[in-house]
């Protein structure tokens, strides 16, 4: 953990009502730091806001807000925040992430719990659909785990689906996992990810530009996305529809000059449509975690080891099976969700005899009990 001192004046300035990134930018043209603003008189404040904000007609209000806020004690504010276990870093501080300084529309300050991604290690944002498929779910986990183990910081949005899975997998693998929230850092949203929120407060980090206690609001999330890509060197898209929040993140990332990698999928899958489109536009193709790792550390001996490993594992498990279960295991394959009727028909064509519904259900159950298959929804199954 690095220096966690909070600059009380910066915190004071950032939390004044009606004073946002733009106003602070204007103030900083006159004043050199937040502390100076704290000691300004009302006239000085008026003067320094008047030039830039005249057209808006709200400079006096803002100046007044600041003026009145001067009665508060910044030290106390900082103390209160620290008691909640929350830290604050402003652009004036050394600990402010260097990656963010360079992005357009950089926030003046960010709140965070525990830690910020280190500057000297590469970081990757893993983003994707909330209602991802089994394939996306699995790949998100594999990529996050592997990258985290290679010492790469994993940044995600802690949303449902890909984000949450990647965040959790990275944390579980013992790597550095960070979540950027659209609400306050102390608000665990969505509720399904409460546990992840807890894990990240203990080992990892939670970051947000919104003050603690901010409730999740729809308009906050697209802005949050620019921080996800901003904190990362590379954005990895696991699964995304052509028009989705993930694409907003990618747009922001391109604007910030980040590299984009996308996980290829079948062209017929709506959920992989966005990824395939990105690839066709020149995004890097994430065939395996090694591809991404090579991007940072240069070419290593990698290839498709993981895939090979999975295949061997499945072959080993297949040997435990015989008869119709083995056939079903093959038909079911790996990762795709399939329907009952389809599976029965395939079994029949392979076995060359009638398969009745009872036999199928029993076989499927045996596979499920062995942990080789799983029912998704009703009547849909996937191989594991």
């Amino acid at each position: 953990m690095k220096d966690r001192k909070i600059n009380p004046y910066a915190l004071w300035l950032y939390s004044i009502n009606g004073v946002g990134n733009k106003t602070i930018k204007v103030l900083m043209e006159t004043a050199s730091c937040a502390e100076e603003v704290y000691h300004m008189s009302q006239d000085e404040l008026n003067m320094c806001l008047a030039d830039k904000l005249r057209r808006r007609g709200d400079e006096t209000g803002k100046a007044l807000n600041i003026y009145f806020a001067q009665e508060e004690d910044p030290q106390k504010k900082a103390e209160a925040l620290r008691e909640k276990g929350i830290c604050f870093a402003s652009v004036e501080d050394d600990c402010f992430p260097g990656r963010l300084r360079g992005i357009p529309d950089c926030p003046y300050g960010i709140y965070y719990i525990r830690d910020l991604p280190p500057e000297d290690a590469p970081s990757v944002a893993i983003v994707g659909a909330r209602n991802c498929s089994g394939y996306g779910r699995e790949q998100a986990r594999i990529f996050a785990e592997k990258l985290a183990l290679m010492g790469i910081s994993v940044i995600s949005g802690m949303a449902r689906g890909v984000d949450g899975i990647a965040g959790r997998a990275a944390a579980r693998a013992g790597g550095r996992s960070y979540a950027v929230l659209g609400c306050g850092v102390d608000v665990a949203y969505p509720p399904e990810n409460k546990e992840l929120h807890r894990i990240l407060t203990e080992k990892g980090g939670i970051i947000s530009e919104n003050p603690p206690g901010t409730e999740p609001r729809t308009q906050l999330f697209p802005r949050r996305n620019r921080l996800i890509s901003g904190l990362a060197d590379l954005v990895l898209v696991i699964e995304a529809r052509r028009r989705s929040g993930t694409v907003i993140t990618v747009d922001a990332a391109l604007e910030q000059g980040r590299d984009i990698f996308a996980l290829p999928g079948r062209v017929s899958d709506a959920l992989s449509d966005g990824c395939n489109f990105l690839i066709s536009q020149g995004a890097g193709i994430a065939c395996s975690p090694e591809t991404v790792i090579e991007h940072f550390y240069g070419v290593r001996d990698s290839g498709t080891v993981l895939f090979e490993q999975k295949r061997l594992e499945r072959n080993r498990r297949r040997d435990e099976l015989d008869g119709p279960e083995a056939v079903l295991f093959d038909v079911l394959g790996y990762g795709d969700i399939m329907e009952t009727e389809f599976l029965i028909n395939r079994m029949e064509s392979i076995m060359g005899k009638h398969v009745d519904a009872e036999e199928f259900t029993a076989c499927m159950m045996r596979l499920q009990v062995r942990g080789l298959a799983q029912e998704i929804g009703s009547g849909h199954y996937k191989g594991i």
Partner: protein
Amino acid sequence: MYSSIITGAVHGIDSYLMRVETDISSGMPSFNMVGFMSGEMREAGERVRVALKNFGIHLPPQRITVNLSPAGIPKRGMVVDLPVSIGLLACLGSIPVRATENVLIAGELGLNGEIRPVKGILSIVMEAKNSGISTCIVPNGNLSEGALVHGIRVVGVRTLAELVSYLRENPMERDRLLPPAEVDAAQLLSQANKAVYPDLSGVHGQRQAKKALEIAAAGFHNILMSGPPGTGKSMLAKCLPGIMPPLTTDEALEITRIYSAAGLLPEDTALITERPFLSPHHSVTRAVLIGGGNIPTPGLITLAHLGVLFLDEISEYKSYELNSLREPLENREITIRRLTGAYRYPARPLLVAASNPCPCGYYPDMNRCKCTPKEVLRYQKRISGPFIDRIDFRVYVGRVNADELQGSELEESSRTVQARVMEAIERQKRRFAGTPFHYNADMTADAVEHFCPLNSLLAGKMKIVYDQLGMSMRSYHKSLKMARTIADLNGREMILERDLMTAVGFRLPEINDEEHLSGKEFDRDKKILTGSGEHRNLFEA
């Protein structure tokens, strides 16, 4: 002059005998009816007065009092028109008082003296027989229904004039005038037209769903069908009564009694010979569903007794209505209590529920489903948990591919399936002889332990399944009951591993959708992925 006529009234689906007492005495001319009557029954006075006038008898300007006894039970219906008019005629001396002794009379009267059918004749005649009445005079339209009861003389009359001449006749000669009718229920059943329900062979593919229906019919297990719209859930449900065993005479009589009491038995129909199939719209009210009203009338759950109650789009039903079904589904009957008494109705339908898996209907097909995970969860959670507990298993009804739809493969007919179901039910009958159970679905937890024994190998296997799937105790018992039915269908007394696995495969899963939707990881999943040591090493290398 005083006279007393016996008639009957429906109470629930049972009946009680009622006495219509008539008295004509001197005093201010009036026509009073007393005895806790509803409006339409009180109007009998007017109908009787006019009908008698048209028959040629003018009521004398005297004080006429009619009392219905017992006076403590609220009464409704038109059943007393006829007894009141005969009572008056007896008082006036047009009919000898002795002619109505030990005779039960029931019927509604038209102003022209025509006699019209009334509700509940079957149950009234049954009660009359039990009370030792010798003759029942019923409207001709109800004759075939009343004639189902043997050991009592049941006579149908068309007009008041016919009835009067019948009663004036010497008792020895009466049968010649209007011969008593008798209908044989068993014969009617055997003659019944079997092709009322669509045949299972008309449904292409859907093997799993068909098997599920067979199991439902064989063990009387309530079933939930889920799947995208337009895949034939309703069609399959309609086939279900056709594969349930044919009604026995007792069952047919019981159903007929319900329909008769509800006034839903078509005129001139003696017996309901087919299992009822009811599919209410999801806007149905609680009173319609379980029965209600000041003087209760039977609800759909009673009208579907021994048949099929099909609740389509179950997620659209309000939980208030669904929850009201819980108790009757558990107790096999519904008791409706009113201040003036409790009304008991049998209610043992086979419940078939159908639902889409999500608002758009395509989940988990992610290429077509446009619902957010939250919407899917909310949709699935809309059906109340306690209600779902009454359902034994679930089957997915998916899209059938074109090959099967056009396929020439011969599909099994309802008759073949029915034969297997009947055999399974025969087996259950033998097993449950001397117990309160009829079907496997009736078994209590204790009975499950007793009637579904697992050998040590299977018990061990089931333990693994129980842990692995995170099953609940209830789900465990349901699976055993289902396995019992599947074994019965396969003609085995012994439950095999295969039966058990099929049963578990059909169970209502507890958690997995939620897990899938909320984006949480499956620990099971994880176990497989990192199952071997080498796999883990790969990451650490």
